[in-house]
């Protein structure tokens, strides 16, 4: 939304003729230009490497695939209209913040710079890819019901594992920053929009494209490396690895941009009165995550560029005989890898600590401690990455150091429990669905955290490294931690985002089935790991057969419980549509003082913040912000 007092505002000339003929930028054009881009890029790639013997013999020309995908990316972004702004800037027109936005449902399939539209688009995209990856998980578990490769042949199984892992992590790293971050940060800090609305829309469309490019790995023959993409195997794999690399690169790029966007918004666009210690804890969680995203994702991008060069122009970054080294990928990937898993965990902390006070009817206990905890986690997550490499033979003399830093990082992570316990002390708990998810977060993350202490201890890590123990650990921290918190966030904020309530009974059914079957699925896998079952294998020794069959059945029930969530979403938001009102949870947050769904400009006039939104049990405390007079026909100017 622009002030009419822009220096060189020029009235818009009538749309050019071709625009009328071809219709508007949007998803249809993006898909068409994306596919055309791939075909052209592939054709050009084949022409360029017609004499490169290595590319010809593989029947799948990596140069052509990479070029095809790069052209497809430009086609996709061009089709959505992302190049119109840079071109107009290069022609000297002044910066503007909003694309031509029109309302109506079609704005969800088009480049729209309203942060609320992007938030909902993100939510739909993340949930869609979450279910695609979840379906892969069901296939993995059905393969593991038998002790050797029966359902899926061994080669395809690795692609299955790779797709499940990569897509889950791709979607979950933008899983909270994207939907809840973009939607709620402006509402919670009293601003009308994010710092860079156009970049915000770009991150959404890059994430969606990355998801589909990763799925295209199936058409290119799959990839055997799993989400970690270890080095010489990545150099050696078929075409599917190119899809993995390009999609992970796009996600890295989207992470940098969404991190910059959220952090800049929090730094510059807070409403007057919102000092640093009045920022809601959820926004602090996202700010800490953004710092990690901005600094860690470039290292992943660099590592991916290196593998890309290895596969196309025959450099030898990771080829030991040629002066490279596989250890380089280990170090670069895990230098990004560990901040990545905290990019996954911190938003979960933020959501839980935001929901807890509302349903415990008590202020957040130890707000500054929570903020210090999150910042501590963000800072230290760059110093622990070699605990993934305890047995890899890299600088054994640093083992004690990395054991120490990994143990050290469990202090700020443990602070979250103190905040939770303090907030629940003599509270008045209401067991609504969001609260159930928040409480179960503590239960799951406790088991995840303690198993992490086992793994950070080198002697114990020798047996558990690369086994199902590790797999159970990170499912407890990511699914038990982040996904439970995200579900709580969805149940808590969807009434605000859509204006309609989510069905309480279905919600509780979904919670209890998800909680019970999640624990029954992943707790036995700690035992499987300790009993010697390596990760990502199709066959295991017979003694583990009954355990795996039990876990598979529990996993199918977990899948069924996720379907209940889907049914609840579709039933409550598409069919029943029971209005939720502005503040269904009686919360004191700023976002609950505007109608739901909030109007396009969020606040009639920029509010003045009076304090933290956790003034429960303080009857005389002022409301978190004074919103100023409602917008009348002609507003008497800007902020109060």
């Amino acid at each position, binding site marked *: 939304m622009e002030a009419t007092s822009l220096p060189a505002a020029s009235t818009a000339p009538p749309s050019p003729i071709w625009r009328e003929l071809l219709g508007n930028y949007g998803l249809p054009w993006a898909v068409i230009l994306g596919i055309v881009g791939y075909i052209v890029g592939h054709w050009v790639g084949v022409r360029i490497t017609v004499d490169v013997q290595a590319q010809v013999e593989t029947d799948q020309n990596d140069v052509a695939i990479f070029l095809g995908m790069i052209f497809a990316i430009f086609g996709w972004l061009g089709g959505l209209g992302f190049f119109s702004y840079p071109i107009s800037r290069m022609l000297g027109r002044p910066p503007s913040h909003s694309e031509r936005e029109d309302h109506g449902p079609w704005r969800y399939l088009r480049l729209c710079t309203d942060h609320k539209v992007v938030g909902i688009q993100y939510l739909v995209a993340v949930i869609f890819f979450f279910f695609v990856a979840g379906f892969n998980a069901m296939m993995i578990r059905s393969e593991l019901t038998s002790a050797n490769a029966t359902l899926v042949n061994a080669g395809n199984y690795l692609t299955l594992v790779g797709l499940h892992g990569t897509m889950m992590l791709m979607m979950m790293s933008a899983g909270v920053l994207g939907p809840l971050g973009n939607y709620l940060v402006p509402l919670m800090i009293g601003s009308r929009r994010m710092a860079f609305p156009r970049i915000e829309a770009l991150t959404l469309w890059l994430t969606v494209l990355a998801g589909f490019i990763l799925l295209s790995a199936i058409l290119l023959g799959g990839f055997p490396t799993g989400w970690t993409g270890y080095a010489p195997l990545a150099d050696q794999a078929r075409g599917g690895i190119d899809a993995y690399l390009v999609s992970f690169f796009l996600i890295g790029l989207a992470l*940098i941009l969404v991190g910059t966007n959220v952090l800049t918004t929090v730094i510059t666009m807070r409403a007057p009165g919102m000092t640093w210690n009045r920022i809601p804890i959820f926004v602090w969680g996202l700010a800490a995550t953004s710092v990690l995203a901005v600094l860690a994702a470039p290292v992943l991008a*660099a590592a991916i560029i290196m593998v890309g060069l290895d596969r196309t*122009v025959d450099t030898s970054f990771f080829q030991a005989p040629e002066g490279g080294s596989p250890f380089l990928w280990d170090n670069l990937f895990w230098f990004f890898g560990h901040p990545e898993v905290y990019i996954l965990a911190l938003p979960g902390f933020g959501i839980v600590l935001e929901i807890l006070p509302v349903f415990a009817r008590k202020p957040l206990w130890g707000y500054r401690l929570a903020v210090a905890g999150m910042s501590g986690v963000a800072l230290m997550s760059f110093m622990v990455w070699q605990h993934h490499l305890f047995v890899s033979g890299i600088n054994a003399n640093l083992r004690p150091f990395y054991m120490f830093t990994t143990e050290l990082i469990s202090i700020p992570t443990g602070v979250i429990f103190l905040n939770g316990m303090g907030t629940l002390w003599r509270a008045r708990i209401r067991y609504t669905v969001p609260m159930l998810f928040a409480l179960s977060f503590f239960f799951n993350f406790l088991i995840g955290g303690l198993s992490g202490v086992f793994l950070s201890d080198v002697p114990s890590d020798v047996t558990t490294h690369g086994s199902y123990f590790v797999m159970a650990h990170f499912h407890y921290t990511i699914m038990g931690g982040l996904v439970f918190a995200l579900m709580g966030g969805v149940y808590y904020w969807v009434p605000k985002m859509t204006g309609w309530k989510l069905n309480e009974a279905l919600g509780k059914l979904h919670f209890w089935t998800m909680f019970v079957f999640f624990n029954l699925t992943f707790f036995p896998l700690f035992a499987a790991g300790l009993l010697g079952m390596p990760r990502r294998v199709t066959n295991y020794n017979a003694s583990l057969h009954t355990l795996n069959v039990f876990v598979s059945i529990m996993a199918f029930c977990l899948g069924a419980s996720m379907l209940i969530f889907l049914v609840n979403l579709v039933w409550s938001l598409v069919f029943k549509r029971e209005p939720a009102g502005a503040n269904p949870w009686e919360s004191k947050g700023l976002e609950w003082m505007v109608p739901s769904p909030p109007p396009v400009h969020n606040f009639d006039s920029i509010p003045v913040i009076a304090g933290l939104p956790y003034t429960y049990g303080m009857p005389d405390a002022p409301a978190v912000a004074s919103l100023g007079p409602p917008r009348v026909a002609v507003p008497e100017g800007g902020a109060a």
Partner: protein
Amino acid sequence: MSASVPSDRLGQPADAEPDEHHLANVRIGVRLLSSGVVFLFMAFTFAFWYLRELNSNHDFHPANVNPPQGYGIAILVCVIATAIVFRRARSELAADHEQFWRPTAIAGLALGCVTFVLQIVEYLELPFKTASGGFASVFWGWTVVFIAVWLAALYWMETMVAETLRRVSTDGPAVPVEAADACLVFLYTLAGIEIVGYIFLYLVK
């Protein structure tokens, strides 16, 4: 594509203050993205020192692989010159010498383009191909990524030059000085990266 008329979608007059944050956002945004870019090149720097120290199969830096020193210096000088010339242009802009800001900014942009051209020519003249050891890989990786990021700097300078040339109203500076400051921060970052890159790509044996 014309800049859209900034009107609020629901027909209500747009609020008065969205623009005041724009320059502050650009100021913070460029610092964040510059630190991201520094981490990007830190990965390549780590790759260089790590592979050099490992020197697996004694094939990291075969004797016959030597980058052309001439081009290295030329590119380094051009990058630093671009930053200095643009800094000069910025101070002209701050002092509201419109008539000096314009040519100096264009000179800065031109120098940037020269850097780009020099790098491409160096690729054509390069004595070693990509498949000759770890050093060659890091050399190609670093320079390709640097030129890609350098294009972003060129784009940014170009938008400012274009905005100056296209100016309609004459009150105030052609381009907000803060925008030029932000672009300078990005140029300083890239100049610093180029210096580090020059040292270990061309000087360290």
